[in-house]
């Protein structure tokens, strides 16, 4: 460690210069409605070897700050004021040629979506070689060995084989490791990680974050971790900067920020972060929680027949491969059993009336396939889906859309943007199920839409807007209003808050709870976020590789997990130092 500190340049008064010193930075974007100031006069310093978390919700300017530092703002954006000093170098004044040399060699960045950051048609080994050659870190003779060494350093097993892999052949976590390898290939002094684990499973998130922290310690690098997750930042960073609407609200050590948050916004953010040992109302600011009143929590009376009974449900997909296609083409034997992939492998569970059940698991465990089968959007391979005494699993999915049962099972989708038709206004989207499946007159339609909007807390002015004119939280509300429009008995919630900021998530979760109580619906809540499931659900089902590994009351599963897999999941949640 000491040899590193020796090299730190000293300012005239003898104090160590920070590696990165951002002073009075203002970033402006030229838009159709005039200039927008995305970042307003912020100061951020980063010492050598330090890990700094920048936390904020969407639109807080946290990513823009990092783009400004790397000088990769798009054409509309510019640094209007302030200075960015990297060691002794003025990055604002540096030429584009100098910046190109610095990026990758001295400062690197990891982006949110690892798959988008990698070139899909080049082998990962070659992509790492590109970086090494670009910055003259290796010559053509030694470059492949060097690339393998780099892959090894990010703990990729069997690096010699993986060198020849294409990005699509690797899992999300593996891809993110490759991106980290790319970023660190030239041993930069500064690493900026922009939401590096968003979209990854909790266990993968833990592995990736542990790797980043370990590598930065090992190499005495400075790291900026940009995230919306206060818990993640506090768990992995030395210091945390909280940003809101382009301003730095608070800077504090991560050990103290949870104990004594200085600013009201930080407190609000912390409150809204789901964590063990609290109730849904605790997520809201005090005045909103008081207004919302106590949670009624009507659970199913014992002895009643369950609303939904799933038995031995199986979904198989044919494995697509050359061998299978050839066999099919020549029609010799029927496709053998091993050529199918079981996405859902014989699961059985029940959902009672008015009950909310959490379905938890990592990506690829079959939870989405299960929910799509319950929704009757895809057909099952075998098993029964008894809904209120009727086997709806026997009805082909393509006929289900126009049947009266359609009204009784609805869904809220994961991505509020993707699930709204870009050409429909909010009112038209909410009205769609009413027009198709209820006998509502054109005259009452508008008032019904307004009633639903009020119910989900969407201001009526927004009803005539298109989805791209709404924020994420508003779009989520439109999606929920659409799902409850027909007063269904069962709603499948497919990670309805995964794309939302924590404060919006807090409001939406409370809204869902209240709607369930007032309308007497049952929920199947599909999620990978155990803290959220703990808050909303009465019972939990944990899935892995198409099978249920554990199910039971939420308290029991969370506090005394029986299966090893559940324990792993619980352990992987970042624990902020509270």
């Amino acid at each position, binding site marked *: 460690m000491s040899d590193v500190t020796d090299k730190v340049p000293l300012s005239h008064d003898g104090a160590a210069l920070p590696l990165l010193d951002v002073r009075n930075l203002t970033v402006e974007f030229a838009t*159709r*409605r*005039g*200039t*927008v*100031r*995305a970042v307003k006069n912020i100061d951020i310093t980063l010492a050598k070897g330090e890990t700094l978390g920048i936390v904020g*919700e*969407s*639109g*807080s*300017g946290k990513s823009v700050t990092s783009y400004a530092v790397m000088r990769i703002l798009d054409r509309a954006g510019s640094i209007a004021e302030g200075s960015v000093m990297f060691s002794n170098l003025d990055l604002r004044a540096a030429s584009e040629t100098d910046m190109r040399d610095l990026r990758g060699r001295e400062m690197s960045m990891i982006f949110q979506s690892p798959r988008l950051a990698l070139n899909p048609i080049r082998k990962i080994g070659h992509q790492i070689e590109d970086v090494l050659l670009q910055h003259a870190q290796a010559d053509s003779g030694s470059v492949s060995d060097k690339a393998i060494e780099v892959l090894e350093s990010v703990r990729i097993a069997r690096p010699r084989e993986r060198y020849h892999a294409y990005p699509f052949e690797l899992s999300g976590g593996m891809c993110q490791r490759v991106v980290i390898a790319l970023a660190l290939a030239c041993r930069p002094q500064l690493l900026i990680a922009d939401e590096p684990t968003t979209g990854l499973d909790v266990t993968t998130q833990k592995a990736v974050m542990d790797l980043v922290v370990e590598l930065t310690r090992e190499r005495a690098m400075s790291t900026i971790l940009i995230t919306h997750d206060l818990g993640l930042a506090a768990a992995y960073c030395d210091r945390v900067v909280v940003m809101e*609407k*382009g301003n730095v609200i608070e800077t504090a050590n991560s050990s103290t920020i949870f104990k004594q948050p200085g600013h009201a916004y930080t407190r609000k953010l912390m409150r809204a972060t789901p964590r063990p040992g609290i109730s849904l109302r605790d997520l809201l600011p005090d005045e909103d929680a008081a207004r919302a009143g106590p949670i009624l929590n009507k659970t199913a009376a014992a002895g009643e027949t369950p609303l939904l009974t799933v038995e031995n449900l199986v979904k198989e997909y044919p494995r697509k491969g050359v061998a299978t296609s050839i066999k099919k083409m020549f029609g010799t034997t029927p496709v053998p059993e091993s050529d199918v992939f079981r996405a859902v492998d014989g699961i059985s569970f029940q959902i009672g009336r008015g009950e909310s059940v959490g379905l938890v698991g990592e990506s690829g465990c079959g939870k989405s396939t299960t929910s799509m089968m319950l*929704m009757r*959007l895809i057909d099952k391979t075998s098993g029964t889906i008894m809904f209120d005494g009727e086997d709806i699993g026997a009805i082909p999915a*393509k006929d289900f*859309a*126009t049947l009266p049962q*359609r*009204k009784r099972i*609805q*869904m809220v*989708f*994961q*991505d509020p943007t*993707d*699930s*709204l*038709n*870009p*050409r*429909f206004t909010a009112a038209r989207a909410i009205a*769609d*199920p009413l027009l*198709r*499946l209820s006998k509502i007159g054109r005259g009452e339609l508008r008032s019904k839409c307004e009633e639903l909007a009020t119910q989900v*807390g969407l*201001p009526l*002015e*927004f009803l*005539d*807007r*298109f989805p*791209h*004119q709404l*924020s*994420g*939280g*508003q779009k989520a509300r439109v*999606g929920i209003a*659409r*799902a409850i429009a027909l007063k269904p008995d069962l709603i499948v919630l497919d990670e309805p808050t995964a794309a939302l*900021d924590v*404060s*919006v998530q807090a*409001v939406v979760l409370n809204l869902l709870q209240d709607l369930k109580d007032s309308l007497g619906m049952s929920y199947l809540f599909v999620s990978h976020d155990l803290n959220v499931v703990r808050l909303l659900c009465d019972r939990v089902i944990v899935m892995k590789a198409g099978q249920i590994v554990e199910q039971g009351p939420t308290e029991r599963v969370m506090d005394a997990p029986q299966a090893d897999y559940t324990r792993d999941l619980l352990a992987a949640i970042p624990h902020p130092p509270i």
Partner: protein
Amino acid sequence: MTETTATEALSIAPPPATVAQAVVKPENNSIFRHARYVMSENPVTGMAFGLFALIAVLALIGPYIVPHDPLASDTAATLAPPSLHHWFGTDQLGRDIFSRVVVATRLDFVIAVSSVVLVFVMGGFAGIAAGFFGGWTDRLVSRLADTIMAFPLFVLAMGIVAALGNTVTNIVIATAIINFPLYVRVARAEANVRREAGFVQAARLAGNGDFRILLAHILPNIMPIMMVQISLTMGYAILNAAGLSFIGLGVKPPTPEWGIMVAEGAANIISGEWWIALFPGAALMIAVFTFNLLGDGLRDLVDPQRRT
């Protein structure tokens, strides 16, 4: 003002109370405002729309404003060069070329528009159905498109007109058929991408049948890209109709039509009477140019995401 809009745009779902004041109600004239914005953003688009308006006006009122009868021959003034009396000169029968060029606008415009409308309906729907349903529908439509693509397109158009007869209707049909594969491919690709989109699933949950999903949910979403296609094929359709007339398979003389006029004038270029072919040729070029430029502007106009 800019400051407040900026923070509004960037902030996350603000509490309902404060939102009410910040909301700007969409105004009724927003489409015109939007059109003005699109044109000011891109002057070339503005020019294209201007030229398009000119062509449309000439097609509409051309025959009533021309100085001479386009069919009346004047043996005293054959092959006269451009002058104040005959702006574009006269042809070998002494007909006024300016009047003929202006009057021909209607015919060429009608051929282009009706063939594009026809192919948009046929190709667009076949393509969307192919992309959405997949399977046999897809195979049938795609192979049909491939078969048409296998012919040299202009030769195919010649064949169709020769077989069906030299009428305007048949030119329209032939032009539509040779453009069919282009529409099928674009519509199929776009529909295929959206088949699994969240809003399509949501539409299913809302009780929409397949055909309603196609027409009410998917079609409006692929309109922007189809608009570009329409404007491109519009230019091609005019060129194709003129080409057919040029080789004697389209509109029959003495009907004024740009293609025939170029063909008639071509013989006279060597002897120095360049104006007979030049002016109808220039009109043709400007029309094709206009339609091609129109594409981007049209896309921006019909895409709500550009209307923020």
